[in-house]
């Protein structure tokens, strides 16, 4: 994948709302401009991260992709801290 990132957060197996709750916490620890890669198995996270990024403070959703991992779909989100 072309998007480069600085940190990875693994929330595989976590169900809504935890992928987003943990991502919010992790974003707070990022330096401005850094990118967090979040790997989730919760399919609902795709639409929820889109909605969240529209209204969230200092979060920009750069990209989302679906990746097969051991026969399971994982949903990968790239988030940049903007301020």
């Amino acid at each position: 994948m072309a998007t480069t990132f600085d940190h990875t957060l693994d929330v595989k197996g976590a169900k809504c709302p935890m992928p987003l709750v943990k991502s919010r916490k992790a974003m707070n620890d990022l330096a401005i401009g850094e990118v967090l890669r979040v790997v989730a198995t919760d399919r609902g996270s795709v639409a929820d991260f889109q909605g969240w990024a529209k209204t969230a403070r200092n979060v920009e959703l750069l990209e989302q992709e679906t990746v097969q991992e051991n026969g399971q779909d994982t949903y990968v989100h790239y988030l940049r801290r903007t301020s």
Partner: protein
Amino acid sequence: MTSIDFSIEVDVPAQTNVDFYNSLLQNQPVHVLDVRNPDAFQRGTIEGKSNLTVQNLPYYDFVEDADAAVAQVSSDRDIVVVCAKAQSSQFVAGILQERGYRVSYLEGGMPSWGNFYDVRPLLEAPFGQIIQVARPARGDVSFVLVSDGQAAVIDPLRHLAYYRDAVAQANANITLILDTHAHADHISGGPALAAETDAPYYLHPYDAIHPMDMLPAQMPYQALTDGQRFQLGQLTIETIWFPGHTLGQVNFLVTAPDQSTYLFTGDGLFLESFGRPDLGGKGETWTPVLYQSLFQRLPAMINDQTWILPSHISHLDEGDGEGRFFAPYGQVRRNNAAMQHGTREDFITFVLNNLPVFPPQYIEIKRVNLGLFIPDEEKASELEIGKTSVP
């Protein structure tokens, strides 16, 4: 900056589908807080009566800034939080409860609500019973008729346990399975029920051809004919061809020994509206056919005392207002929007000018109902997502 500790587990009361449905029917003042994302909310949310208010406030707004989100909750009434599963609504309900709100969350979330069935008797007489099996969130209604130990199921939905249980409770056996038409808005339980009971499954042959694909049905069925009669214990069931919503739409007119009559209209005639004639992609040619059915065929077969029992409702106030979705024809005739347009031209203009959006999944659902495509459970529930406001 929000200071909420996400690890706190607050003990918020859960609300079951049954209790929640009863509170909707009783028109209790309830505020539903739907915490799913706006796209999911747009596709369909909780619907009730006049005292129900619904607000969409995504759970991630509470994650972002709990106090700011709580300030947007626009009600001090009893709040029921709903979400896609149940964990997010528990999370939001916990935040509200900590701040003193009277709040519960809907157990199981929206998918479970969409699959919630309500079973209640409409008629219990010496000659037999009529049991209504409804799926309120989707507006789908089906029926079980019982007489002398025999049961007929009309327009069964796909969760068969409810029919098994209702029939067992009535000490009867299913001997007849009837679909009023090939459904486009939900998956029929008819063929599967026939396979497990050995009772024949009936459908009109005009509906056994997919109107878009022009392909014949692949599942076993018996062909209904106009005028065909069945005897179910002491009840007579007469098939009446009623084209318009589909070409093979039929009504079933049930006559009891006391001469009371019950017309199961499927999607031909609803209590306050009618089944849209455009789902075959031929609204212009099918609307005049619907006119003939409604204004020429219908009055000839029933009287004002005949009970009308449709297979779809659009809101919970329909019927007796207490969750029994039937009414005498005299009342339907006066209140039904379509029946107020009595001339052919007026009716056609009214119908064609008021056609709602065509849900794209309806084409696929009809393929399922004709055995042209067999979905797994995940695909089946995905096809049936949301409410069918106009079947």
